[in-house]
């Protein structure tokens, strides 16, 4: 299917496409989420070491991976917007940030829920959890910066620069935190052994897909609202059916 990429690079045309695509992602997301939760909580066997509490990893791990993945995608879109001056790319970056931050937060929260039955503490300074916390700060910094700047152009470009510098720093931060963790002999949050039961793998993968589809759907929804706000003075927006009502 040959899509004319440049046709959809304009906010006005992308708005319509995004609207049509949302249900395409949202419904499968909801279905997969239900399936994944079912497998994870009812089908997968009880873990030998960690018993029932471990099941939270079916949300924790996909959320963690996605939070990092989304940061890179966000930085990528932001960079595109900065280099090629395309407004829509910058709007996508702005739309991705809250979802990325949410996943980072969920990752931390589920990490805590996992930690409590395991080590008796609500928080452990594990290298991954600590890096996740710092990632959350990076997301919040991006969102805070963009909301403090009134001029949308400056907000786009400043945010892009911050996101790019942030993504270069993420490996450095991760490495530093890992080193710090070994120095202070902190605990490590691990799954029991490397070979997982097939049902666990299925649950993990299903939940990952579900969360990813959700992220796409919600980002498309958010970017539509950003487009409406930023383009509110243009003709095509004032002529939209939704606005005319």
């Amino acid at each position, binding site marked *: 299917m040959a899509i004319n990429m440049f046709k959809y690079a304009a906010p006005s045309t992308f708005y319509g496409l995004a609207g049509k695509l949302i249900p395409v992602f949202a419904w499968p997301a909801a279905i997969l989420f239900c399936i994944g939760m079912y497998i994870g909580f009812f089908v997968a066997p009880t873990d030998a070491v960690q018993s029932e509490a471990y099941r939270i990893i079916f949300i924790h791990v996909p959320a963690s991976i996605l939070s990092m993945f989304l940061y890179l995608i966000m930085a990528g879109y932001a960079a595109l917007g900065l280099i090629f001056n395309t407004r829509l790319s910058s709007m996508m970056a702005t739309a991705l940030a809250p979802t990325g931050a949410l996943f980072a937060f969920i990752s931390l929260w589920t990490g805590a829920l996992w930690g409590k039955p395991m080590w008796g503490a609500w928080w452990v300074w594990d290298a991954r959890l600590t890096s996740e916390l*710092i990632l959350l*700060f990076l997301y919040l*910094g991006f969102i*805070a*910066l963009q909301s403090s700047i009134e001029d949308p152009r400056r907000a786009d470009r400043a945010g892009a620069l*911050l996101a790019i510098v942030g993504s270069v720093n993420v490996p450095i*931060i991760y490495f530093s935190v890992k080193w710090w963790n070994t120095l202070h002999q902190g605990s490590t949050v691990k799954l029991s052994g490397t070979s997982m039961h097939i049902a666990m793998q299925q649950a993990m993968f299903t939940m990952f897909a579900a969360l990813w589809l959700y992220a796409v759907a919600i980002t498309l929804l958010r970017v539509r609202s950003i487009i409406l706000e930023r383009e509110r003075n243009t003709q095509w927006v004032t002529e939209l059916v939704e606005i005319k009502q």
Partner: protein
Amino acid sequence: MNKLSLPGLLGLVIRRDLMLAMRRRADVLTTLIFFVIVVSLFPLAVGSEMDLLRKMAPGVVWVAALLASMLSLGRMFSADYLDGTLEQMLLVPQSLSILVLGKIMSHWMLSGLPLVLMSPVLGLQFDMSGQALLILVFSLLIGTPVLSMIGAFGAALTLGLRGGGVLVALLVLPLCIPVLIFGTGAVIAVTSGVSPASNLSLLGAFLLMSLLFTPWVSAQALRISME
């Protein structure tokens, strides 16, 4: 027309900033006093048990240095931004990155260097050994310029925005965490009898990387903020 050479530009900017600071000496002192106060708060808060304080010392001094550095960032660009001189700097017929590097260097001389010089005194309050003090000073000497450089990037991005100092801190502190980890790590290494060399060389690597990239990135941030 005789354009300044790059070292000449660097020297001019540093001289200018130092000259300005000399006429507003209070600004420089307040950063130092803040540093001393923050460090002194910890024994008051956690008790004066020497063992505990000795263990906390590198962390406390480093965090205080970090916070003092954040506080002083407002001074880097905002005065020049408000009276229009920063605007003119964007039009110099030379590398803006070198100009920014000059501002960073003078900022460090006025806020980072005093902290480095003050730190042994504060370390003594925490009963740090001579060796630990030496490494503390050394780690701050290498690390505080990196803090100034990362801070410059944050200050340039947030030029003229409401939310001021807190916003810069939110942006910059996460990026400074590696410096904090290895800075304190060096001192902890030496107090545990291990060589601090790997920590210090990583700090040195951060210094080199920031020297290479932050002036340019901050210059871009300045242009974005001044549009």
